[in-house]
């Protein structure tokens, strides 16, 4: 820890830090970031089935640090009690899996509730960092080209998005806010855009979908709210450490955001060629409207997975801001978009070779 950071950090290098989802895509980068900042007492919570090779490698590189691996299930209150004991900062990154609403809810909201309940018993907790998502923003009422930032409204009826992940994340944020208000939990909410990088090679649905056998390019000239995984981990780390930001929300997107068309062109040039059909925005909106109407008319014979709310959230032309995160957390994206893409495409190529 450098001197200036020590002055602005809410904890010291030996205070215990809990990272849930520590073996995951972002979690492992966050652990690396925290170790790089000189924090020496990390508790990493992971599922019993998680691969811990990355953490082992990090432990090998940071001999002086104490990296405690706790394997368990956040659905277990006992496991949560063990995980949160005496911790000063909790970074809650564990992502709820499951495509159905109850599964996603259980793995996001119930787990978060258990963690919050357990942390209520810990008097030394200084910060609870809740990792949310851009998926929670409604984006419905804003005209094109309006800015999406932290002041924008969250989905008020998230179930109507037809997307379990969105529903669970909205409910998770509500729960964290409620615990902050009722019990004084010092929370911060971080909402990353689409996090890309080695280890997450899928193409974002904001670019398009391959559901119907051919890749439908829905993004057009839209700006993509991308953030490189290391940049995102940096922002999350700062959100957990910086003084005076309790109760705030921070969106995380990089600078020099690409358009969907540019990203797709680069992907095809660097990873693999495939056929895609560009779908004009008016057409994608019309399809979403019709799908939604048919779903309602047919009593959900087709589930409402395509609907207007989803179109607004993912395929509407929107601008994004990272001003608050830069100004209040002192964050800057250290990995440029160009460098991030280079690493990402290399990783995609390697994965394609091993497939």
């Amino acid at each position, binding site marked *: 820890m450098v001197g200036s950071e020590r002055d602005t950090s809410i904890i010291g290098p030996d205070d215990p830090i809990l990272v849930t989802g520590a073996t995951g895509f972002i979690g492992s980068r966050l652990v690396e970031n925290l170790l790089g900042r000189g924090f020496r007492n990390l508790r990493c919570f992971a*599922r*019993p*089935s998680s691969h811990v090779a990355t953490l082992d490698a990090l432990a090998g590189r940071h001999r002086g640090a104490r990296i405690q691996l706790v394997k368990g*299930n956040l659905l277990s209150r006992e496991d949560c009690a063990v995980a949160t004991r005496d911790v000063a900062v909790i970074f809650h990154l564990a992502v709820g*899996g*499951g*495509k*159905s*609403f*109850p*599964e996603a*809810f*259980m793995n996001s*909201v*119930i787990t978060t*509730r258990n963690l919050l309940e357990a942390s209520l018993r810990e008097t030394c907790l200084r910060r609870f960092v809740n990792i949310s998502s851009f998926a929670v923003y409604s984006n419905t009422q804003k005209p094109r080209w309006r800015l999406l930032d932290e002041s924008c409204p969250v989905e008020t009826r998230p*179930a109507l998005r037809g997307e379990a992940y969105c*529903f669970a994340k909205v*409910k998770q944020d509500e729960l964290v806010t409620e615990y902050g208000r009722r019990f004084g939990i010092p929370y911060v909410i971080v909402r990353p855009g689409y996090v890309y990088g080695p280890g997450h090679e899928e193409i974002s649905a904001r670019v398009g979908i391959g559901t119907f056998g051919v890749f439908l390019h829905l993004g057009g000239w839209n700006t993509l709210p991308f953030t490189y995984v290391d940049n995102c981990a940096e922002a999350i780390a700062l959100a957990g450490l910086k003084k005076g930001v309790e109760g705030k929300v921070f969106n995380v997107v990089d600078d020099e955001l690409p358009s969907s068309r540019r990203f797709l062109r680069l992907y095809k040039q660097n990873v693999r060629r495939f056929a895609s059909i560009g779908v004009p925005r008016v057409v994608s909106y019309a399809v979403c409207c019709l799908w939604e109407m048919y779903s309602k*008319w*047919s*009593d*959900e*014979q087709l589930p409402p997975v395509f609907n207007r709310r989803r179109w607004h959230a993912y395929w509407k032309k929107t601008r994004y801001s990272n001003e608050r995160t830069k100004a209040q957390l002192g964050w800057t994206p250290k990995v440029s978009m160009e460098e991030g893409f280079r690493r990402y495409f290399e990783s995609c190529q390697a994965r394609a070779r091993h497939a």
Partner: protein
Amino acid sequence: MLRVAIVGCGKIADAHASQIQRISGCEIVGVCDSEPLMARQLYERFAVKRYFGDLSDLLNDARPDVVHITTPPESHFDIARSCLERGCHVYVEKPLTLHAEEAQILVALANERGLKLTVGHDDQFSHVARRMRSLVQSGYLGGRPVHMESHFGHELEDSAYARALLADKQHWVRRLPGKLLHNVISHGIARIAEFLSSDAPQVIAYGFVSPLLRGMGEEEIVDELRVIICEDERTTAYFTFSSQMRPSIHQFRIYGPKNGLFLDQDQETLIRLRGGRFKSYLEKFIPPVIFAEQHLGNVMTNVRGFLARDFHMRSGMRYLSESFYRSIREGSPVPIPYREILLTARIMDAIFDQLDTRRSPVISKSAARDQTRAYHAASVRQNERATPDSSTASASVGSSRPRGLGRCPGEGEVV
């Protein structure tokens, strides 16, 4: 208006809530889960009047006529019994209970109280299953079934459920007597049970952990199962459960003395297998054309259903629920006869008993044979007593371990 409640607000409860809302003349008056947040999320997404974190509160305050139980199977018996004792009709998700004795007790209790009970074997009420039943009832097979084959595939690799199960050594599925099998095979077994006439068929089961799971360090989750069911040396059936077989199918074949039928649940197709043969080379050319015509007919039937907005993924559940509610309102027979429910439970018990026996290294062949004979005798006695409306019979069944069905002599060696 029939007042309906749902207990257990996990994944399958969503399907129940959706289907119940499509049925006229009923309303969901309450949902309940021991985790109140889970109850609340269901309440928020569906038009439900109230949510509860306690079963007693639900029964006292919401006063449902019917309770759908969608909790994990180990709690089915206690919850169903509580609901029946409080005067509610009960729809229990499959499997009905962990053991046949418990199923027997519930059936007896329902009869004693003048209430109705059913189990979520909704695949038997899909469009295609109903078409098959009509054909069988019309005498298409030409007599009682000679042989049946039920295939039930279950892909593990891409399933979040399977990942959770394999990763978690404390997962609730591992606490079931038949573990993974217990939670999934009843659909496939119930298909066979529907067409058996005896209450005590012989059951021979062979199960093992697939090489895939063994390679993942898994030793207790049996994911490959083969079963032979034999009824008085007249009707036989094979049941196959597999996580590794590709394609992963859900199919049923039934052969009579005259004709046969082939049902594909996933594709919702029903094919008539005619018993006669064409002469000489005609047998090589005409039957494929007939099959092609039948497949095309299935396509048209499915498309018509889709266009008529009557082809939902869980249409069987809706039909079963609707039929169950009708039986409550009109006092007509339940959609799944109790005999069939109990037979399914007994066959499952027999399968799991044999898998247990096989895994126990100390059991000798002679002991296995003795045990087999004891099971057979117990089963025969049990079936002599076990009339569905006899509460005294149920009580004695509850205490008559070991449970199970009669099996072929020497099956201990086979397993």
